[in-house]
């Protein structure tokens, strides 16, 4: 396989991993953020700290523990093997699960902040008009915090694309399976293949810049609108 073909394969693997991770993160991150936003227990800070851990831990620490958990000798790894018939460590599923842990705070934190800011007032009003909990979420919470959902999804996606340490620890370097862009880049540099390294680095840099700019642009637009509404309301 030529270097370019290998890099394109790494790109598709990366995009697939980031997209699946983002979807999973939105599905589990939203209720988690909701619970944290409405939690009144004094242990709330502990849960918040757990969610925030990946922000400060070296990814290799997270990767190391996940590797232990995913090995066929440990319970999670065994359960996975019985359920799917294949090994979890060094698989595409492993790097998706790793990414979910690794990018969790990037999705949960903006959502939690948005839910906290939204408060109870509109939800109470909706309840008095006959809207049940799920109805209230989709008719009130989601439209009013759309900007934060976009931010959360984009940050989760971008951060997953940029992941290196966790993937290296639990995924290895299997083309088409676990070889993602950051690892392909590392390989090129190890092999003194700087021209390919440049292509990947510059590509990641520019696409991340574009993604983040569009997030801030969109977020700004939504926020300005909701701020204007709040000001007018009072």
């Amino acid at each position: 396989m030529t270097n370019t073909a290998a890099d394109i394969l790494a790109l598709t693997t990366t995009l697939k991993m980031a997209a699946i991770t983002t979807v999973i993160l939105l599905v589990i991150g939203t209720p988690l953020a909701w619970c944290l936003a409405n939690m009144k227990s004094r242990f709330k800070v502990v849960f918040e700290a757990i969610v925030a851990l990946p922000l400060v831990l070296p990814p290799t620490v997270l990767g190391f523990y996940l590797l232990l958990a995913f090995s066929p000798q440990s319970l999670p790894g065994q359960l996975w093997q019985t359920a799917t018939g294949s090994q979890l460590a060094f698989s595409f599923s492993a790097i998706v699960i790793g990414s979910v842990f690794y990018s969790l705070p990037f999705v949960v934190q903006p959502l939690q902040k948005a839910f906290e800011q939204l408060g109870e007032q509109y939800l109470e009003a909706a309840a008095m008009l006959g809207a049940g909990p799920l109805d209230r979420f989709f008719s009130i919470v989601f439209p009013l915090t759309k900007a934060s959902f976009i931010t959360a999804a984009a940050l989760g996606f971008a951060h997953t694309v940029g992941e290196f340490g966790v993937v290296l620890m639990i995924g290895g370097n299997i083309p088409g399976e676990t070889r993602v862009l950051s690892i392909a880049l590392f390989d090129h540099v190890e092999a003194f293949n700087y021209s390919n390294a440049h292509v990947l680095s510059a590509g990641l840099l520019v696409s991340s810049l574009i993604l983040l700019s569009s997030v801030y642009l969109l977020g700004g637009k939504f926020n300005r609108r909701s701020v204007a509404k709040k000001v007018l309301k009072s």
Partner: protein
Amino acid sequence: MTENLVSTAAVKTPILGVSIDIAFEHFNLAINHSIELSGIVGIFGQSGSGKSTLLRIIAGLEKCANGKVSIENRVLQDNVSNTFIKPENREIGLIFQDNRLFPHLNVYENLAYAVKRTPQGKLSIEQVLELTQLAELKYQDVTSLSGGEKQRVSLARALLAEPRLLLLDEPFSALDKKTKAHMLQIVKKIQQQLNIPMLYISHSISELQFIAKQLIIMSSGKIDYIAPTHQAIHRLNNIDDIAVKTSLSLSIAEHLADFGLTRLSFADTSNSVYLPLLEHDSKQSDIGQLLPCIIYARDISISTTKPEHSSIVNQLAGNISEINQGATSAIIIVQCSQQKFYAQISLWSATRMELAIDLPVYIQFKANAVHSFHLTEPTNHA
């Protein structure tokens, strides 16, 4: 169009049963009452008296509430039988002080939100827009509305959910007096047309006096008493920090535009009371309507002889029925036929004039001492 909404069937007055005893951080709420939900029942209390909490409990928004709440035979919550009907299933409407219109929806969409969740609803958005005088604002962004308009949308939205009981938590306290008067008229009219029982909270006695037939008086988490409005207001006269006043309803007799006065008449005597000219239409269609008014005791003076050379327009003859001496002034209660008037005069005057029970006296007060939210419908709603 709205005439056919009037319920002609004699509806039995529903009874709201509240039996709760909850300790909150700053006060205890202990209530054990049956409240007859006829027309608009006002709830008066100083801030911190627990009136908002009581409404939130009835609405189902206070989950920790310990006790029992029921309307007629329907138990809304009861911690003995472990019942708790969620707010969305209680068929109770609540209008908040801060309107809480959904900012991402326009006027029409805010109203449609309620309609969509009221499958058995009989009212149409068009009907309610007309009742609340909102037709022209139908597609406006709710954030661009004025305070009074926002509360009208909030009222319209609550009505469209067709509640069996509508709770209003100081809905108009942030509005200026004129807008408030207009809103009070709208609420009063809608109550009569749709026949929805309402519980209306306010810390303004004059607002409640205008809108409610019955008053619930609350203080420090308890219901002190429930009484017809004028009677309840007169009982409040015994409380130190509330201005002593006479509360009464008189019928509008004539508008004297040339003199800038409106004349009100008593039902049982030929006496009249004059007040500054009320806004009225050219047909004077409000003649005969009952106008609730308030006269502060500090604005009423007493004379033992008929004041023949006075500029003061209101002069009524009566007899002293009660004298309550305070530290510096005295409250003299004067019975003029069926109506009691409360006058506040200095102790010095009371002593000098040798006032005594049963003494015949004349009470006097200026036209602009008579306060009221005027009744007349504004002819255009712009």
